């Protein structure tokens, strides 16, 4: 079952990685922004998987904090790394788009600032786990909950505050020719995210086996 899931994700990612650029290049040009709007097709899916990573990390952290679940902790650290990875993608592709569309690389706009904050919280999560010493995993799990709480704020920020960032309704109002490339990119990047998550979880499982083996050797020597 697990192999079927992994194989289907690999097929979707592989087909999507080849097919999405073709669909994106064939999509009609947006009337106001022109060619630069094509960044939208991978900027938005990257943001979506960044949010997904933050929620998975928070879910895993809750399982670890309240039930002591090691599986939850492994899911949390793997998702946190992917949140940071796709956060980098969002925070680089966004300003590149902004440079052309707004004439500035960065604006201290609420959407942009809260997105940066989310990324920084998950960087802090990884630093806390790596350098925090004993008890760092619990501290990091707490941080993950704060990070996930930022996600709804990022989403609704464009509706509450005045902002130059496009509104969330832009996806619903996409033209007919733009919908297929957008959803193809969405599917591709989600499949890519799930594959990378599985790769990263495999690393955590291998580490857990190594720790168990070290403990078993120590027990045996005693």
């Amino acid at each position, binding site marked *: 079952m697990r192999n079927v899931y992994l194989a289907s994700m690999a097929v979707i990612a*592989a087909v999507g990685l080849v097919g999405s*650029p*073709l669909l994106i290049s064939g999509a009609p*040009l947006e009337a106001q922004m022109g060619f630069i709007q094509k960044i939208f097709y*991978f900027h938005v899916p990257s943001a979506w998987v960044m949010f997904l990573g933050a929620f998975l990390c928070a879910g895993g952290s809750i399982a670890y904090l309240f039930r002591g679940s090691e599986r939850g902790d492994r899911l949390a650290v793997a998702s946190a790394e992917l949140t940071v990875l796709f956060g980098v993608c969002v925070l680089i592709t966004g300003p590149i788009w902004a440079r*052309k569309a707004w004439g500035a690389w960065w604006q201290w706009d609420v959407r942009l600032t809260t997105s940066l904050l989310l990324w920084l919280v998950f960087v802090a999560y990884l630093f806390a786990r790596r350098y925090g010493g004993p008890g760092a995993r619990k501290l990091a799990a707490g941080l993950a909950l704060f990070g996930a709480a930022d996600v709804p704020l990022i989403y609704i920020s464009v509706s509450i505050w005045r902002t130059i960032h496009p509104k969330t309704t832009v996806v619903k109002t996409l033209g007919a020719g733009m919908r297929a490339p957008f959803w193809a990119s969405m599917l591709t990047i989600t499949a890519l995210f799930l594959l990378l998550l599985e790769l990263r979880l495999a690393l955590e499982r291998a580490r857990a086996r*190594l720790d168990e083996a070290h403990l078993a050797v120590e027990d045996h020597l005693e």
Partner: protein
Amino acid sequence: MRSLLRTLLSSMILALALGGPIAAARAADVPPGPPPSPTPAPAPAKDEQGFEKVDGSMMKGESIPAAPLVSIAYGVIFAAVAIYAFGVARRTQRVENELADLKSRVERAGGGGK
């Protein structure tokens, strides 16, 4: 796990090979903006508050080419994912090697158990 990684990376390379030239060709199809006028337009008159009236001559077409920016943005995502996937595969390999090494040392010592 390695075959998954291989599939992923080969599709990324293929997509990059296909996507780059197509995007560049598409960018070349974009109609250029209006040519710059040979003589500079006279400066628009300012009102009493210092604001200038907007007119069409201010729109001189694209000053920053979009195609390289789109390619860079696309390349960033590709590079980030590829570097991360390689990094995780390397880290996993290191842990697997350490585990195998530990196992063989235990077996050599005649311990039997892990």
